[in-house]
């Protein structure tokens, strides 16, 4: 038996309520009055396809979900709303979330049409209790990062394309313009799987850190209702743990130490060795030349460039690894704050992000490639292709030119 209008109305109300929208707010998104939304939900007014399309977008759902045999009452957006009471009040974030979910649904659909067997979520899940203190959170985050690096066979080397690594683990990644105070968020539901979204407005090194931070949440907090990662929440224990994970995952302690030692730095200024011959010991002392072990700002620039991190996070990393003391840290930070770090990085051709930073475009490129392939295989129409292209800000003229040059027109 087909769905009744009353049942469709009930499902719309359930979807609206589960993501904390009032009838008035939903009406604003769908171009309807509060009264009309009430009538639709009660099944006393029909809803048009245009209105239903907008309603689905507003509540972060695929329009098909309203007609599914069994309706999923709570989805990714509902989970986020449960975890973050501020969400409904932050209109720009809600819009970004709606756009992210729409992209997630279309991505899922394209993979299904192309019969791409989306890898199961391959990531390990680290069952951890809530940390008791910030210290505990840092230790746990670092430990999980080390284990995850081992599991992935990364050794102590820098990670190249982080989003590619996550995708290979079955985690979808995307970049969407989020409000300035949100670095990233993780959406999880049965349709789109695990979808990590980072703030496309942030600089490349920050986006990279955010991606690692969200990956930390995926590994350690998957079972919890995950709130967006906000700047003002950075002291929360789960955020501290995810940050510690990101730092260790991107710049593993052993890798950093090896890198610094390779420059002949980071050693003690005086080293003593006792050579024992089963009767007596001979004391040998080696003194480094004064100042030779001091880490300079150009060392920090090279370290940051090597691991694809910011100079400031590299600076904190070597301080935390006790490769520099507080006095040296302050000296280097003052130099960095004065702009010297940037000058040195330019001189060394060692920018923080890879020279050709394409991470912002990674998702767009992947999404468009899938859409083009679906069009080539005649799984979607030209008009659908144009809609998908518009979702990642590609205009009709640019699309037309791309199709012509690829001989797909």
């Amino acid at each position, binding site marked *: 038996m087909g769905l009744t209008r009353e049942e469709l109305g009930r499902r719309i109300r359930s979807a609206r309520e589960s993501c904390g929208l009032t009838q008035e707010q939903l009406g604003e998104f769908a171009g309807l009055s509060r009264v009309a939304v009430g009538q639709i939900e009660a099944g006393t007014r*029909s809803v048009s*396809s245009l209105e*239903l*399309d907008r309603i689905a977008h507003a509540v972060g759902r695929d329009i098909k979900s309203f*007609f599914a045999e069994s309706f999923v009452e709570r989805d990714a957006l509902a989970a986020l709303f449960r975890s973050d009471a501020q969400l409904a009040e932050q209109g720009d974030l809600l819009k970004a979330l709606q756009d992210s979910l729409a992209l997630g649904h279309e991505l899922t659909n394209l993979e299904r049409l192309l019969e791409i067997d989306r890898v199961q979520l391959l990531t390990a899940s680290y069952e951890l209790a809530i940390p008791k203190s910030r210290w505990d959170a840092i230790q746990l985050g670092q430990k999980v990062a080390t284990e995850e690096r081992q599991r992935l066979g990364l050794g102590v080397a820098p990670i190249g394309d982080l989003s590619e690594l996550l995708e290979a683990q079955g985690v979808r990644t995307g970049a969407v313009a989020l409000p300035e105070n949100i670095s990233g968020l993780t959406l999880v539901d049965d349709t789109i799987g695990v979808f990590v979204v980072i703030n496309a407005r942030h600089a490349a090194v920050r986006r990279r850190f955010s991606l690692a931070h969200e990956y930390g949440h995926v590994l350690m907090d998957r079972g919890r209702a995950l709130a967006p990662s906000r700047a003002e929440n950075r002291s929360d224990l789960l955020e501290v743990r995810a940050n510690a994970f990101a730092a260790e995952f991107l710049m593993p302690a052993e890798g950093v130490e090896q890198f610094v030692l390779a420059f002949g730095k980071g050693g003690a200024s005086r080293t003593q060795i006792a050579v024992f011959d089963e009767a007596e010991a001979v004391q040998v002392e080696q003194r480094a030349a004064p100042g030779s072990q001091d880490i300079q700002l150009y060392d920090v620039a090279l370290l940051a460039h090597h691991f694809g991190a910011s100079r400031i996070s590299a600076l904190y990393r070597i301080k935390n690894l006790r490769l520099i003391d507080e006095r040296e840290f302050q000296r280097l930070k003052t130099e960095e704050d004065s702009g010297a770090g940037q000058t040195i990085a330019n001189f060394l051709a060692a920018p923080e992000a890879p020279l050709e930073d394409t991470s912002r475009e990674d998702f767009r490129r992947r999404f468009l490639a899938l859409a083009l392939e679906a069009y080539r295989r005649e*799984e*979607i*129409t030209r*008009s*659908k292709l144009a809609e998908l292209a518009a979702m990642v800000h590609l205009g009709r003229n640019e699309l037309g030119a791309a199709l012509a040059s690829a001989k797909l027109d």
Partner: protein
Amino acid sequence: MATNAETIVVVTDANVLINLLRIGQLPLLGKLDAYRFLVPEEVVAEVTDPDQREALSSALAAGYLGQAVVDTMESLQLFAELRDMMGRGEAACLALAATMGCHIASDEKKRFRRRAVELIGEERILRTEGILLEAIRQGRISVAEADGFKEALAANRYSMPFQSFSDLL
């Protein structure tokens, strides 16, 4: 909308409307006897060129084009299913045509046409050239005029697979 048993109702997609707008022949849709052309609201939204939008609005206001809405449960469900593979306007046209048992006017080929044939059958799909041919048959335009339109559309990357409309008569 006033239709009778002999009237063929045609739900019209944006590509056909745009073709007719390009050659200034949108009013032809109101002049064909026994045809009633409807435009879903999604299709209206897809006509974005300001001059074309104005001409379409005038046609809707004059009443020779009717506006259609996908709002029955059956058509909504089909619309939702079709959205995976086609644009909003196409999905609305096909959902309406399939559930109302009427014709569709669309120049789309490949995936859309395959699905349209599955849902409503080939005989209920009209193309721009089919509309111009019907206009010739009803004496609304001459073959020479139609061939001129064919040429103008070819310059806009829409080609018809024949030399002249006279070949079809």
